[in-house]
């Protein structure tokens, strides 16, 4: 699978999706076209799902989310990303660990992580204050 990398900007997070490394989405998210930004990320996880099904090999993935500000459209798409990750984690041969980091003062991001944790129960989402 090809690596997917996007550099961080003022209004978009850094995205690192590479097999063999920890996946991550870090930064603020309020792009002009949210669908255009997140659709390739969703597609990458769809492809990962297909790859895991075909390989049947036992694999562990880990992912970090560390966001400070998300506009509401980004929150919607992040939910779609997490849905795809949850589907992968439900495969018998996959263990998918997710870390949801937030700044210590940021109750808003902490609560969002907790919301996602309560929605996507098949995922192990650790909420980490930094």
């Amino acid at each position, binding site marked *: 699978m090809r690596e997917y990398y996007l550099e961080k900007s003022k209004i978009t997070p850094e995205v690192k999706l590479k097999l063999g490394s920890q996946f991550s989405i870090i930064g603020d998210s309020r792009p002009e076209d949210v669908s255009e930004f997140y659709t390739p990320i969703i597609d990458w996880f769809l492809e990962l799902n297909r790859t895991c099904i075909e390989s049947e090999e036992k694999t562990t993935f880990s992912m970090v989310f560390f966001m400070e500000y998300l506009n509401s459209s980004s*929150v919607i798409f992040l939910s779609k990303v997490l849905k795809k990750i949850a589907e992968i984690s439900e495969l018998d041969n996959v263990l998918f660990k997710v870390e949801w980091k937030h700044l210590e003062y940021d109750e*808003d991001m902490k609560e969002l992580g907790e919301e996602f944790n309560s929605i996507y129960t098949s995922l192990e989402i650790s909420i980490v204050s930094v």
Partner: protein
Amino acid sequence: MRVINTKQLSLSLFERMRANNIIMNYYGALSFGMAQHLIDDIYDSLNNTSLDRIIIKKIYSSFIEGVENIVKYSFYKENNRNFGVVNVSENEEGNYVVGVGNMILVSQKENLLLEINRLKDKSVDELKLDYRNFLKEAGEKEEITNGLGFLKMAIDCDNNIDFNFISIEEGVDFFLVEITIKVD
């Protein structure tokens, strides 16, 4: 309508805004680029206050949602541009008010009212439950659903959110949203 005396207008606006503790006010065309400048400006202004970071984030977040709504969802344009007004002020009680307004077609009013009525008279806990359900549905559905922006704004301000439709001309209303964030 033409302004005959621009000096008087500028002074009047300056005095009124100063008297009303307006931290920032913008009237004009709102492109995505312009919105980013305003967002950066309010971020800097708020970080130069002694406000708690959680409060700053709530004001900032409401501002962004409001401005982005005008940029993305203005159906009424003048000379092909979205026009709107956005401001942030501190009221007499020391609370912060984010005001966002733009012109809409009266035919758009029904859809807006549907979203607004979902928030009416609800407690913050009820709104948070709606938020969770919205996120769950959003993850499952292919299509993009609207309404999360107003819901988030309502949660951030403990549902101190006021919606107004004011008739401007035949078939056109001025839609004004005011969010009051309490500073404890």
